[in-house]
C-alpha cells in the first residue's frame, strides 16, 4: 500500500496493521525518515516538501510493485508526507513484512533507496539566509544503483 499525505502518521499503528493476523510473517522491517535540524553546518528552521501529484503515487506504486517482484513479501507500505515540516517531524515510512528476515530487511532498504531517486519530491529548506532547494546527493544515486545491477 502507498499513501501520500500532508498529515503525520503513527508508526506503531501502521506497523500493527501491516500483515495483521498473518501468522506466516517472521519479520517486519521499517525505516522512518525525519526532518533534521541541520543541513551540513546550517541550522534549518523547517522544510517544505513539494511533490508532483499523480506522478508521485504512480512512481511509489511502481517501486512497491518492483519490491514485491524481487522479494516474497506478505505486505509492504510506503507513506510519504508533503507540505511544511519542522525538525523532528516524520517525513516518510517504509515497512515490509515477510516470512524471512532477509526479505524484509533487503526490500525495506530497496524501497527507501529507490524512492529517494525516483519519487518526485523536492525539499525546500528554510535557513537563516533564506529558503533554498536541497540539491540531490550523488550518494543517493549510488545507493539506488546497487539495486540495478542485481
Amino acid at each position, binding site marked *: 500500500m502507498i499513501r501520500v499525505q500532508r498529515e503525520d502518521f503513527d508508526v506503531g499503528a501502521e506497523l500493527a496493521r501491516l500483515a495483521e493476523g498473518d501468522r506466516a510473517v517472521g519479520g517486519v522491517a521499517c525505516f522512518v*525518515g525525519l526532518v533534521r535540524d541541520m543541513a551540513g553546518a546550517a541550522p534549518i528552521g523547517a522544510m517544505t*516538501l*513539494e*511533490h*508532483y501529484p*499523480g*506522478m508521485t503515487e*504512480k*512512481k511509489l506504486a511502481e517501486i512497491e510493485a518492483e519490491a514485491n517482484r524481487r522479494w516474497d513479501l506478505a505486505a509492504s507500505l510506503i507513506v*510519504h508526507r508533503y507540505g511544511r515540516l519542522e525538525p523532528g517531524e516524520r*517525513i*516518510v515510512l517504509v515497512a515490509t513484512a515477510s516470512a524471512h528476515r532477509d526479505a524484509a530487511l533487503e526490500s525495506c532498504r530497496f524501497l*527507501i533507496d529507490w*524512492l*529517494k*531517486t*525516483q*519519487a*518526485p*519530491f*523536492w*525539499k*525546500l529548506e528554510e535557513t537563516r539566509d533564506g529558503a533554498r*532547494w*536541497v*540539491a*540531490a*546527493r550523488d550518494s*543517493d544515486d549510488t545507493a539506488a544503483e546497487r539495486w540495478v545491477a542485481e
Partner: protein
Amino acid sequence: MKVLYFAWLRSRVGTGAEDVTPPAGVTTVGGLLDWLATRGPGHAAALANRDVVRVAVNQEYVGPDHPVRPGDEVALFPPVTGG
C-alpha cells in the same frame, strides 16, 4: 500541450503550469526545451543548465530524444530529493 514546473524551475519560470502550443517542428523533449527557453528570461534562466533538469512525459521519466505530442503532460523539475 501542458507543461508543469516544479521546485526551483517553477520559481524561475514564475508559474507551475502553462498550456503551450509549440511550432510543428518541435517533436522531441530536447526541441521543446529549446523552444521553451525562448519564451522569456525566466524560462531561459530555468533551462540554462540542462544537466539539472529532469523531464517526465505523461508522468514517466524520459530523455531528450523522447517524442512530444499535442495533449502530452510534460513536467520539468530538478533531480528529486524526497525520502
